[in-house]
């Protein structure tokens, strides 16, 4: 299980932030984020997702359950990754925080992502779709 933690903060005013990557199976990569996902942390998210894609994972889950808020920069990272996915790959987002959901809604991107309240639902989604397509 590959685990990376990013506690170095380019902007000290934002609190702690962490990224935990896990691979429940050989096709699935889960990136769990914690803290505040903003301009300073968006690159960490980007590289975690890009690494997963490059490593050949087709089923990606971004777990935002423990993210307190997210800004437009992080959103643009998700949009970029979502658009660059190969055929057959699938991205799902786990999110219950209303602040974060509001960002998705406000930006009109809630229709672009498959957003689920729980990790299990998200995993079922990415696996189900991947199985069907693949």
């Amino acid at each position, binding site marked *: 299980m590959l685990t990376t933690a990013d506690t170095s903060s*380019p*902007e000290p*005013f*934002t*609190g702690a932030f962490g990224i935990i990557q896990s691979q429940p199976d050989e096709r699935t990569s889960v990136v769990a984020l914690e803290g505040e996902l*903003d*301009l*300073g942390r968006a690159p960490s998210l980007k590289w975690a997702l890009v690494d997963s894609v490059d490593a050949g994972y087709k089923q990606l889950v971004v777990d935002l359950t423990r993210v307190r*808020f997210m*800004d*437009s*920069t992080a959103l*643009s990272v998700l*949009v*970029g990754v979502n*658009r660059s996915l190969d055929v057959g790959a699938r991205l799902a987002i786990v999110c219950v925080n209303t*602040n974060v959901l*509001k960002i998705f*809604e*406000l*930006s*009109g*991107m*809630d*229709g*672009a992502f498959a957003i689920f309240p729980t990790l299990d639902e998200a995993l079922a989604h990415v696996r189900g779709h991947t199985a069907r397509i693949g």
Partner: protein
Amino acid sequence: MASHANRPARGARASRRVAVAIAAGCCLLGLGALPTAQAAKPANSTSSSAVSGEATVAPHGKHAERAVQAESVPAAPAIAPAPAPPPGEPPAAAHGRHGRAIQPAPGPPPGAGAGAGTGPGLGLRRLDREPPLARGHRHQEGAARGETSSAPGSQAAAVSAGESRQGAEALARKHKGKGKERGGGKEKGGKEKSKESVSPTPVLKIGKGKEASTVALSQETAGPSATAASLSSSAASPVAGTGPASITSVAPVAKAIAAAGVHTQRATRNARHRVAAHAPGSPTTVATAPVALLAPSSGSGAKASAAARAAVKHTQTSAAQPALVKTITRIVGVVPVPVRILIAALVALALALAGRSRLSGVRARRLARQRGQLLEDVGLLQAALLPVPPARLGPVATSVAYRPADGPGAGGDFYDVFALDDGRLAVIVGDVSGHGREALPHTALVRFTVRAYLEAGLAPRNALQTAGSVLERQLAGSFATVVAAIYHPRERTLTYASAGHPPPVVLGDGDSADGEGSAEAIELTTACSAPPIGAGMRTGTRETVISVPGPARLCFHTDGVTEARIEGDLFGAERLVGALGDLGREATARALLDSVAERTDARPDDMAACLLRVENGAGSPAIVHELLELDRAAVASGRAERFLRKSGMTAVAAAGVIDSARAELDLRDSALLELSLGDGPPHVELAHDNVIHAAALTAVGAR
């Protein structure tokens, strides 16, 4: 770049300057050292019979050396150096301004001194005595007289023009009518000289006017009839017209020298040495030169009765300078050598540092200039992206403001406020993803594209939709959130459409009759917002019409405002409404952003705001119309239903609308949902015509 090329050249120039300065400083100190060294000698010379012949120095060392040679060669007759006027020339021709030139006797008298012709008045004078000019004149004439009257073979006196207080005077006395009994006269003169030579500063100085002059005065006495005074002088005097370097050296005859013995030779050596040392001196060098001494000894060859010593300072500079040089010489004279070296080193260091600081000063000025130009350019670019609209467009007061981010997020925000036909007013506020320099081209592209469609007459939704399909390729991966709005002053409606951008804050300011109405923001539905331009999805799918019957404020902003941090949280739209309420009606966008900046702890993104103030009328703003383009995904995901419920429809009514929409979407890719919100329950219609044209909104609304 030229400036880069210049840099080394400048450095070289500066270092050269420093080097020259150091050299000059060292010269000055070195010169100061010589006279003192010489000053010590006269004491010896008086006690011993030594001819403490002090060196003769001339800038034109050649001539001086010749004079010295003449001394040392016993058999040498009169010597006149090449540039000197021929011996036969009448003395008048060589007259200086003050001094009178001395010419040797026309014939080749054995032992006769060669006359020295000087251009300008050359003077020998003691430093601490004055006035040199008159005296010099007199003395010289005296000397000349003495010279002419001197018997051949007896003595030689070479006097250079100028003022001579000692040498010339002594010679004059000596020779005055004393061709026959020179011994006594000489001794007398010699005594006088020796008396004077003991005086503290027995330095003779030459220099008059701007001419370079050198005097080499040397006198030797050997035997009763041996007095040799050699005074060589060279003068470069454009004024006097005797040529740039008219030199005449008077060489004493030589008989004397044989008797001078060792001392003479020593003196000669000394003199030569000095001459050699100073010979390279060019006329441009400001130099103080020690001068030959007259060291007559008594006629019988006994003790030297006197040693006249003269240090002649040579200067080529203006008349004012000798005073300066004199002062410096005096000061330097009392400073011990190690201290002098130390001072020289310090001076050199100071000069080097001064040069350095000047260099860095020049560089700093250049950098400041370049920075100013850059800032100017950036300012111009920014002004192009962030225009300053007139304070009032028709009945609406407008203000805009922009505040760059604290951190690296600067760039990307843009806004525009401009008038359309029919008195309408258009507003564009947007934010391009990515920041800084990379975002700038896209920022300009999006802003002007959207503006063009609005000016062409498209409704905000259609303008964004068209711009979205056009810009999708050009944005190359990055995307832009934009809100476009048109305010219609006659109808008092605001029509806006958003592409992934926060909706405006619409704040009713109460009835204008009340004056102080409670500021209240209307809640705008964010469900089913259209995605940003460039996100790879169809945008311009929603449009909202708000009626503004009474005084109100319409605040368009970027997400930098709502995403500013306050106590670890986002500032948010609610706090923004609060800030607007606190600021009051007259507040400008600038005041708003300042207020937000004051309240928040950190602002990681740019903040831009555009504030419209609608006046007069009565009533609170309200949403009157919603237009939503639905696709199957929106219906399937439940977003459409959420939107309908948020818009005030009952669950049953919403479900009915969704069913209709599904049926419609079975036939085509999209369905247009029109929601009319009035006093009663919302009225929903599904439109089939989704063709974009300039009057799309009006046509749909009329149905």
